[in-house]
């Protein structure tokens, strides 16, 4: 009884203490560098402007302001969704090696990764919110009328569940209840890997679309998530330390060294996957060949060769080896370039799957053999806004959670 009283007395914070805590928090929040606040303001402003674009699109109707149409209903907003949720999954996969499976060298990157995983997943949801015509209906009918054969249903449900797990995981880490955090970390990992493979299957199980059909995309997205996760960890950890004017300590240096090596390995795997996907596609059905030819030799050749291959895969791979996984400036440059490349990978995987006309084999004059899609200002602004939101939340996170320092447990 006495014990109980004591503990409850400990739990209560007096009014003064509370005010003091807040004042201290506010003081600390305002103690950042000028650059920090400029970046915060700028990203906040971009979020605001792009939200206006999003709301405007909702108000006038997506079909009037987006570049998508009947034959190509999925544009860069779907790509953006894939981009962010794959990063989120990657962050979960890589960070769980440390704080779920106990590989000590990766523990220092855990807390920031869990936080950013929440941020990027939430960003993904925001992007899709501006793509789905009736997002509010989704919340109701996903529950009341589930279609268990639909990959979209599984993906949406699993990602929603994983967001809850992730939030618990993060709160438990903050409360230093590492044992429980580990359990939630494992649940997050399982739900996210299942979700991402279902996201791949959204495309891979469309038997009318030769470019997508098959087991490649679900597997590719998991492999790609590992790569994206490493990219994000290096990018944001480097920036975080830069913003806080801190130097990497030894455990963090070791963690980034390990992440760099994992990244190089995943890039090598991805290069193989992309190569054989192209090679098999080139001898596939006519629809598949048409799509792949347009991708690598046609209008999308710059996307493929420059952005996907050069910026997204080859240059980071090369830079990683030049950096010997120890020069963090070079590794950061690699991650920045890779991010750009990854975004184009997502654009291409979504768009190329739809560019071959439904009736191309019947020589119809009503549609060209290869359809075109051009993203509009509204779509581009929503993507820029989503990136800005990630930066904004990252900056807030660095400040509020004081650089996400983790003690090794």
């Amino acid at each position: 009884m006495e014990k109980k009283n004591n503990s409850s007395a400990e739990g209560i914070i007096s009014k003064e203490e509370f005010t003091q805590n807040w004042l201290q928090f506010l003081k600390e929040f305002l103690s950042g560098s000028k650059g920090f606040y400029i970046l915060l303001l700028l990203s906040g402003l971009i979020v605001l402007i792009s939200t206006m674009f999003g709301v405007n699109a909702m108000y006038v109707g997506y079909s009037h302001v987006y570049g998508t149409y009947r034959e190509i209903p999925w544009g860069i907003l779907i790509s953006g969704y894939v981009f962010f949720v794959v990063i989120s999954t990657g962050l979960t996969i890589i960070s769980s090696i440390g704080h779920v499976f106990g590989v000590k060298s990766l523990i220092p990157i855990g807390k920031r990764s869990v936080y950013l995983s929440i941020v990027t997943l939430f960003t993904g949801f925001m992007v899709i919110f501006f793509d789905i015509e009736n997002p509010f209906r989704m919340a109701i009918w996903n529950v009341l009328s589930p279609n268990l054969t639909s990959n979209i249903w599984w993906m949406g449900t699993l990602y929603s569940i994983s967001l809850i797990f992730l939030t618990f995981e993060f709160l438990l880490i903050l409360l230093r209840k590492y044992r429980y955090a580990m359990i939630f970390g494992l649940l997050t990992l399982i739900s996210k890997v299942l979700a991402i493979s279902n996201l791949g299957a959204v495309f891979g199980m469309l038997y009318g679309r030769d470019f997508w059909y098959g087991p490649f995309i679900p597997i590719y997205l998991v492999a790609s998530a590992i790569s994206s996760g490493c990219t994000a960890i290096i990018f944001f950890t480097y920036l975080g330390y830069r913003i806080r004017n801190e130097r990497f300590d030894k455990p963090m240096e070791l963690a980034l060294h390990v992440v760099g090596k994992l990244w190089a390995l995943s890039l090598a795997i991805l290069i193989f996957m992309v190569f054989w996907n192209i090679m098999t596609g080139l001898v596939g059905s006519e629809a598949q060949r048409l799509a792949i030819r347009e991708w690598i030799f046609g209008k999308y050749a710059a996307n493929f060769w420059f952005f996907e291959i050069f910026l997204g895969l080859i240059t980071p791979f090369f830079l990683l080896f030049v950096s010997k996984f120890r020069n963090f400036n070079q590794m950061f440059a690699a991650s920045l370039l890779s991010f750009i490349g990854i975004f184009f990978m997502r654009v291409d995987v979504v768009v190329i799957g739809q560019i071959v006309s439904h009736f191309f084999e019947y020589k119809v004059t009503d549609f060209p053999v290869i359809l075109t899609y051009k993203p509009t200002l509204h779509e581009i602004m929503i993507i820029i806004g989503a990136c800005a939101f990630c930066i904004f939340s990252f900056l807030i996170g660095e400040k509020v959670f004081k650089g996400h320092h983790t003690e090794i447990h």
Partner: protein
Amino acid sequence: MNWKEFFKNLRTEEQGCVPDETKREFLKIGLIITGVAAGGSLLNVVSVVAEGLATSEELHKEYPYKPHYSMVFIVDRCINCQLCVEACRETNNVPEYGWRTKILERVDTKAVDQQSQFMPILCNHCNNPPCVRVCPTKATYKDKQTGIIKMTDFKCIGCKACMVSCPYDARYYNEEKRAVDKCDFCWESRLSKGMEIPACVEVCPTELRIFGDLSDPNSEVYKIVHQMGKAVWVLKPETGAKPNVFYTIG
């Protein structure tokens, strides 16, 4: 397995051991293909009706739906008068920016004699519909009785997965309904009210659209689909969607 059994099994693969039913099936496909060749004006459409249906048994014995609604186009009769498209627009309140049925024009400048042909399209009400599988909220579904692919508008979240999955480009997003819209063989506007045929079939001056119950041996669609003299084909059979809209020539 010993050698004796091995050779015994091999022998069953020989032609003499093929059951009569399979032989008849094979012969029939052969005749259908010959029909395609005899048709002449067909460009690169070489699919056969047996591939279009759920299984080849269903062609001869059983249909999953009653009435199993189906449509046959006698394509060479189409004159592109657009009356069907207009009738569909009026009957089903299809807005200017969308369509439930459309007439495509096929052109092959290298073809002998006739170098173009009109090809009407609409929802194929597939037996293995990709759109129904992908819909997360069952907003689109295959009617258990008629096999018509229908929509429950208020459940549609507008993710457009059904539009992406459809091999026939049969769906569009209707802003007024705030749902994806598609051909329902005029179920809502006509068939459910006692009328027997969709609006597009009624107005067609050349009677190229034939609508009916594929499981009823007395229906015209049954007679066309089950004859052997002329080729009957479906669009894009390779997708495995198993459509219920057939094409033939007059």
